[in-house]
C-alpha cells in the first residue's frame, strides 16, 4: 500500500532515474519518506472516517455487506482515477473521462451490440474507450493541442454522440451473463467481481508506475519534458500512450458501470472528471506533473466513497452531504500539508 515516490523530480536533469526508488524506512530517502507521511496522513483521515461510521451506525457500517458495498461503489470511479493519475503525473489532464464512460456505456448497450452478448459488450466498451483515448492522444501529442482544450472538446463531442445514440433514452441490458456479474451470487470468496477488477487495475497501475520504464518515463515527462526529450525519451509517443491508457481505463469502467447499473444512459459518468481529479490530487499526485501515486489515488477514492456511505447511512440530506464533502476535502489537504511540513522539519 505504501507509495515510494521516485526521485525523478522537476528540474532533475538526469531524466529517468538509474537507481531503484528508495524504500520505506530509509532515513536518507527524503522524497520516499515524504510520500509515506502523505499516505499515512490519508490513512489517518480514512481511519477517522471509519471511526465516525462505526460510532454513528455500528451495525450497518461495520457489516461485511457494507464493506462490499463501499468497495463496489468505489470500483468504477476508482478505475477511472488510476488512468487519470497517470495523465496528471505526466503533466496533462483528461477532462473527457466522464463523457468517454458515457459514450462507451451507451455504445456497448445498443440493441445491435447486445446481440453479440457478453464479449460484444465488453469489447465495444473497451474499444470505444481506447478509441477516444487515441483521438485525445493524437491531438495532444502530435497535433500540439493543449490537453485541457483537446479533452474538453472530446468531452463535448462524446457526450453529444452518446445523446445522439440513445436519443435520450435509457438502454436496458438484457444479456444475463453481464447482469449476473453484478449480483451477490457472483462474489468470489465474498469479493464482488467488480471489486476484483478494481484491485487488479490498481495493482497493475502501481506496478506500471513504480516498477517499469514506462512509469519512469511518465514521471520524467511530467517533471521536465525538455529534459526527458534530451534524455532520449520520445515524449510525444509517451503522451499518446498515456491518453490511450486513460481511455482504456474509461472503457473498463464503462463496462463495470453497465454491470453495476444494468443499463447504458447518456448521463452516465456525470462529473467523473472532477471526482477523479479530486481523488488523485488529494492522494498526493501533483497537478503540475512529475509526481504521482496510485496508492494515494486509491485512498482518495476510498475516502470519498466512505464519506458518501456514512452520510447515506445516517440519512443526511444531499445539501448537508455536499457542504461536508467540501469541508472534508479542505481538511484532508490541510492535514496533509501540515504533516508534510512537520515531516520536513525533523
Amino acid at each position, binding site marked *: 500500500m505504501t507509495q515510494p515516490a521516485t526521485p525523478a523530480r522537476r528540474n532533475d536533469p538526469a531524466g529517468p532515474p538509474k537507481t531503484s526508488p528508495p524504500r520505506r524506512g530509509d532515513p536518507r530517502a527524503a522524497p520516499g519518506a515524504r510520500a509515506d507521511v502523505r499516505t499515512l496522513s490519508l490513512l489517518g483521515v480514512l481511519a477517522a472516517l471509519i471511526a465516525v461510521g462505526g460510532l454513528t451506525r455500528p451495525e450497518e457500517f461495520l457489516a461485511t455487506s457494507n464493506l462490499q458495498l463501499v468497495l463496489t461503489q468505489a470500483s468504477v470511479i476508482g478505475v477511472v482515477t488510476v488512468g487519470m493519475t497517470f495523465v496528471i503525473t505526466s503533466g496533462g489532464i483528461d477532462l473527457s473521462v466522464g463523457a468517454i464512460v458515457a459514450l462507451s456505456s451507451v455504445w456497448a448497450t445498443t440493441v445491435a451490440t447486445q446481440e453479440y452478448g457478453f464479449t460484444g459488450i465488453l469489447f465495444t466498451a473497451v474499444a470505444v474507450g481506447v478509441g477516444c483515448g487515441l483521438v485525445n492522444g493524437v491531438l495532444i501529442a502530435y497535433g500540439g493541442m493543449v490537453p485541457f482544450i483537446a479533452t474538453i472538446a472530446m468531452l463535448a463531442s462524446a457526450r453529444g454522440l452518446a*445523446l445522439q445514440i440513445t436519443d435520450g433514452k435509457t438502454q436496458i441490458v438484457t444479456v444475463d451473463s453481464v447482469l449476473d456479474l453484478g449480483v*451477490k451470487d457472483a462474489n468470489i470468496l465474498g469479493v464482488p467481481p467488480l471489486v476484483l477488477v478494481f484491485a487488479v487495475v490498481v495493482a497493475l497501475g502501481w506496478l506500471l508506475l513504480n516498477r517499469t520504464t514506462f512509469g519512469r518515463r511518465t514521471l520524467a515527462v511530467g517533471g521536465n519534458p525538455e529534459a526527458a526529450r534530451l534524455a532520449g525519451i520520445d515524449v510525444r509517443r509517451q503522451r499518446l500512450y498515456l491518453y490511450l491508457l486513460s481511455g482504456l481505463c474509461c472503457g473498463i469502467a464503462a463496462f463495470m458501470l453497465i454491470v453495476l447499473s444494468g443499463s447504458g444512459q447518456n448521463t452516465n459518468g456525470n462529473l467523473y472528471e472532477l471526482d477523479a481529479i479530486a481523488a488523485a490530487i488529494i492522494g498526493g499526485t501533483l497537478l503540475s506533473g512529475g509526481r504521482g501515486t496510485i496508492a494515494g489515488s486509491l485512498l482518495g477514492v476510498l475516502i470519498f466513497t466512505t464519506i458518501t456511505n456514512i452520510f447515506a447511512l445516517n440519512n443526511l440530506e444531499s445539501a448537508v452531504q455536499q457542504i461536508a464533502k467540501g469541508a472534508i476535502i479542505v481538511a484532508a489537504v490541510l492535514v496533509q500539508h501540515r504533516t508534510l511540513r512537520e515531516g520536513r522539519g525533523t
Partner: protein
Amino acid sequence: MPQSPVPSRRGILLGTAAVSAGAVLTACTSNEPAGKKPANSPANDPAPAADDRPGKAVTIGFAGPQADHGWLNAINDNARARAKKYSDVTLEITEGSNDTAAQIGQIQTLINKKVDVLVILPADGKALTQIGLQAMRAGIPVINLDRVFASPQAYRCWIGGDNYGMGLNAGRYIGEHLKNKTGAKVIELAGVDSLELTRQRTKGFDDALKNYPNITKVARQAADFTVESGQAKTAQLLQAQSDFDAFWNHDDDQGVGALRAIAQAGRDDFLMVGGAGAKSAMDAIKADDSVLKATVLYPPTMSASAIDIARAVAQGKGVGGLAELEIPATITLYSAVVTKDNVDQYLPTGFS
C-alpha cells in the same frame, strides 16, 4: 376559483374527465404492439374528439429543452405525433436547448416568424417569463407546458403535471397497503434535490402519510434522475435499513438503477412504487416479478394535449367534454396510479 400564479397544486384537476372526453390519454394510444422496438409514436389514435374536423390552418411554434432524458424525449415525440394527426396544423419545432439565452433566441425566432400560437416548455420557467410576456403582447397566445412562468400574464393556458399530487397518490397507495400494519416503515428515494418539483413531490408524500399514523418515514435520500445515481443511492439505503415495508422512488429512470440495486442485494421484503411512468417500469409492473408494484404518472402526453389546446385556441374553439366556451387558464393533470390491474391501459404512454 381564483387564478393562481403557481397553479401546480390548485389548478383544475381535469385528468380523468379529459380521459373520458377522449381528448387526452386514450387518444394517445399507440397502434404499435408493445414490442421491443425502441421507437414509440404515442399519439396517433384515430379516436375522434369533438372538434377533430379540419378547421382554419394553424401554425404552432414549439420550443422545449434539450431532450436528454426519457421523459423529455417523450414530450417531443408526443407533440410531433399529435401535430401530424391534424391536417390543419403545421408544427415549427425548435432544436431543444437547456440554455436560457439560447431558448429565448429560439422563441424570438418563432415570434418573428409570426406563428399563430406558441407551445413553450421552458428549461427554466421563471427565467423565460419575459419572453412569454413578449409573445403574449405581440398577440401570440402562449401555451405554457409544465414548467410554469412566474406571471400568469405570460401565458394563455398552463398545462402540466402535478408533482404534489404524485407524492400524494404514491403516499396514499402505500398507506392503503400498510394501514393494518403496526409500526410500518417507508423509505423514499427522491430526485434532484435542488429542484422545486422534488420538494413538492416529497411534500405530497409526507402529507399523504400523515393520514396513516402507524407509518413512519425512516429514511430519504436524493439521487439525480440517472440510473447510475439510482443504483448507488438505493444500495446505500438498503444497507442503512435492514427492515422496512415500502419504498417510493420519484423517477422511473433512476428506478432502473434502484431495481438493479435491490436485485443485487437480493431483497424482496417490501413494496416499491415508482414515479413518472416509464415503459420499463410498466413492463415490470405487468410482469409482477419484482418488488415494483405500482408507479404514479407524470404523463408526457401533456405535450400532445398542449398541441390540442394550441390548435383550439388558434381556431377560437373550446375543449370537448366541458360546458365552457373557452379553454381553461390552467390545467393540472392527474397523477394516476398504475398497477397491475390497469397497466395495459397506460402501457402505450410509457416512455423509454
